[in-house]
């Protein structure tokens, strides 16, 4: 594992398994009250070139809770790019104002480019359809917190598996820990064949299924649900039919077994019935809340506040 101090966090592809362990265990320490004030006297720039309320608030909460201060903008309308300044020039300028910067941008590769011109660590908070590494870190931390381990779990991943960057990153991460996986999606939104052949090459055990009930025999530890977006379907009726079959309720949980834990990166629309919220199976709000200690840990590590 290379040291985290001064490091850019751009893509899961740059992370080793020991790196992921370091982030997860540090997040656990932060949540248990260790590393208080790890961002004291640190200033973090929060540059959101596209809106993302949940991720932005989670990062900003992480900074404030750790004793740091945060500035930035929540949409590109308030940035100098509106005046025609290049992205690289914006980053070169802001790098002199802060100790680390968090960037979300609709263009794929924007965070990588920022990391090349910035002199402070850059954390990618989502670059188009490419990467959103901190979502995967908080997912891993939530799994670790719930099961006490990351290794050899059985996980079902359901929803839009074709376009969802969250599920691609999670699949990659869980494959590093020997997970057995089932990919549940409508035929038009299946996991890309390149990812499936990568998994085969690595010897990962996986299968595909059309409904969560098809995986009932697996005794899944986790069912990770993602949203199926209406805009992926040309025909609204087709969307309605597909979405209806991908709704998790108490009956789904009964068929998967009471051991299953339901995760979701949120926002949820109607793919998980509200009746699930108060069951011990639902851990998606804990998962969202875990974004804060995970991001505290990460910011502390890259700024040197945590060793």
């Amino acid at each position: 594992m290379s040291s985290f101090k001064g490091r850019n966090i751009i893509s899961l592809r740059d992370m080793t398994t020991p790196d992921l362990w370091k982030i997860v265990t540090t997040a656990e320490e932060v949540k248990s009250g260790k590393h208080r004030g790890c961002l004291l006297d640190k200033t973090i720039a929060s540059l959101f070139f596209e809106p993302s309320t949940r991720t932005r608030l989670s990062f900003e909460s992480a900074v404030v809770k750790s004793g740091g201060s945060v500035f930035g903008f929540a949409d590109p309308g308030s940035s100098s790019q509106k005046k025609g300044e290049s992205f690289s020039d914006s980053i070169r300028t802001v790098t002199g104002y802060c100790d680390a910067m968090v960037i979300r941008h609709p263009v794929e590769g924007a965070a990588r480019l920022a990391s090349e011109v910035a002199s402070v660590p850059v954390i990618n908070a989502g670059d188009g359809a490419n990467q959103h590494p901190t979502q995967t870190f908080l997912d891993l931390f939530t799994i670790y917190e719930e099961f006490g381990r990351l290794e050899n779990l059985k996980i079902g991943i359901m929803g839009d598996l074709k376009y969802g960057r969250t599920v691609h990153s999670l699949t990659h991460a869980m494959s590093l820990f020997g997970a057995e996986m089932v990919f549940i999606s409508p035929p038009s939104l299946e996991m890309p064949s390149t990812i499936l052949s990568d998994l085969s090459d690595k010897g990962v055990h996986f299968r595909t299924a059309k409904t969560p009930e098809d995986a009932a025999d697996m005794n899944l530890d986790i069912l990770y649900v993602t949203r199926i977006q209406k805009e992926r379907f040309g025909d609204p009726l087709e969307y309605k039919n597909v979405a209806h079959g991908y709704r998790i309720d108490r009956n789904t949980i009964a068929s998967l077994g009471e051991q299953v834990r339901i995760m979701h990166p949120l926002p949820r629309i109607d793919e998980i019935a509200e009746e699930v919220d108060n069951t011990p199976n639902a851990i998606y709000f804990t998962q969202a809340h875990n974004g804060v200690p995970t991001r505290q840990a990460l910011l502390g590590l890259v700024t040197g506040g945590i060793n």
Partner: protein
Amino acid sequence: MERAYKVYAINNGTVIDHIPTPLALKVVEILGLGNEGIFTIGVGFQSKSLPGGKDILKIENRILLESETDTIALIAPDATINIIKDGRVSEKRIISIPQSIYGVMQCPNPNCATNKLGAHRHFELEDKNTMTYRCQYCERVTEILPENLTAPE
């Protein structure tokens, strides 16, 4: 009647033979030869190894760097390259596809930072067997297609 010569011989420079027809002009483009010195091209010669014909490119007074000749391997992996000094072949250069490609390949993803934000194009070899490369910005994996190769940035 046998042709006296196919393309004028050169005294000093680089000769690239066995370029599949009609890719010699693409080689000129990716080497950025456009406005620089003298080069001569022969297109559509018969070839035993290339059923569609071969092109020859002779560049006068310029010894290509290995990084440049390896770029040629992206579209003409069987090209032969001779370095000419004082009218003689001074080096027969073996080419192999490069580990890294800078500048000459455009990312096919229109939403990539190289196309939208001015990031410098950079690909790394992903799989030698399938000749696929990964963009170091948007991380998409792409095959080498002549139409994605352009003049250097």
